[in-house]
């Protein structure tokens, strides 16, 4: 019951500042829409680029959204209460990252349908694309949260976060884009999707410990 109260809190707050949360989603749509403008709008070219473009844009959008994850809680003192709560901090951050993904990551996954259409990504492969993002974006959320936990106390943390986290996201990008790319040409996609699934399990089980440790360090002084 205490966990549902915490999820409810995050969802309610998210709803009340939904404009702010829409930023990463709008960023995702605009960035992907820029590619046909900058490149040759030839459908065959766009089709080849689509998996990579969608995945890179989704990755950046998720990381941008992660900066706000602990910021307001840090500024208004709520984070101190979470650290002082008898509930294990790892549980609290797991829920926090999950609800944050629900409101920032999940809309991206759904909107990628629209972007796939825009970039002439083959419609019979769209299931694999969605699935790869569905498995991949939560991993990015967890990685971003590790960065956010370490940069929350810094005034200039906004740019530091992507620099810290981007190198760690490379495996997710490789397997995610591979799954989407293979599906587009009709190749089997099970292998990269299994890899994404395995990484997601690792992220869910290990990242909360890293995030909790990061928050404890950030709030120490």
């Amino acid at each position, binding site marked *: *019951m*205490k*966990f549902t*109260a*915490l999820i*409810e*809190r995050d969802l*309610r*707050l998210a709803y*009340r*500042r939904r404009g702010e949360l829409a930023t990463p989603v709008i960023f995702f749509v605009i960035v992907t829409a820029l590619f046909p403008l900058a490149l040759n709008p030839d459908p065959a070219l766009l089709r080849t680029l689509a998996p990579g473009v969608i995945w890179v844009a989704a990755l950046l959008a998720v990381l941008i959204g992660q900066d706000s994850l602990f910021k*307001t809680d840090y*500024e*208004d*003192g*709520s984070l*101190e*209460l*979470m*650290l*002082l*709560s*008898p*509930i294990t901090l790892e549980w*609290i951050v797991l829920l926090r990252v999950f609800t944050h993904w629900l409101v920032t990551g999940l809309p991206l996954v759904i909107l990628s349908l629209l972007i796939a259409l825009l970039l002439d990504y083959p419609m019979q492969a769209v299931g694999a694309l969605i699935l790869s993002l569905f498995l991949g974006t939560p991993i990015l959320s967890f990685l971003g949260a590790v960065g956010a936990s370490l940069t929350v106390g810094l005034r200039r943390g906004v740019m530091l976060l992507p620099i810290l986290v981007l190198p760690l996201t490379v495996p997710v990008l490789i397997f995610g884009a591979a799954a989407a790319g293979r599906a587009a040409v009709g190749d089997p996609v099970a292998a990269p999707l299994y890899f994404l699934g395995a990484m997601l399990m690792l992220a869910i089980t290990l990242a909360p410990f890293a995030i909790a440790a990061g928050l404890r360090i950030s*709030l*120490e*002084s």
Partner: protein
Amino acid sequence: MDHEDQLSVDNLSIWRGERCLCRDLSFRVSSGEALQVQGHNGAGKTTLIRVLTGLGRADAGEVRWRGQTLRRCADEYRGSLAYLGHNNGVKLGLSPRENIAVASALLAVPITSNVDAVLEKVGLRTHADLPCGMLSMGQRRRTALARLLLANVRLWFLDEPLASLDVAGVTLLTGMLKTHLTGGGIVVFATHQTMDLAPCPVKTVMLETSA
């Protein structure tokens, strides 16, 4: 003696950068006692209170609760303390009632039906369902004070608890502290104003600024 509610500090030293905030500080606070941390601005009152809650880290010395070091009894310790810092820990996007629900969840106490009684007590009954962002600073502070009444924890840490409270608010808080102390609780607080907690015993610890 060891099982009694007692916060004991032995030879505590805290450094922040090149500055020594306290050196070899030792004191005991037992059930029913209050401890006032004194010192002028920048003397390290907030830092000391944060170290006592376990949020901050000391460079030397030990803080013990019921005879055990904080590292040994971290979970139990967090379950027996309430903290009110400079920041209220109140979400401005949520109403006092919703904030109290969140606070109960974080304190791991059931959201009891007495939320209304608690709101009444801190004087927020009529504003219970407005977002805290629309309330005054004093009313936000009162929302934070409500947290202290939710759980029956032994240790209260209050950092400048009187900030932005009006006269009625000060009376309210003083009353809350006295009730807590006579009930066998412990209060550690830092304030620049005078707070009359008589007849409850108040110890003081003075932080000197040293080079």
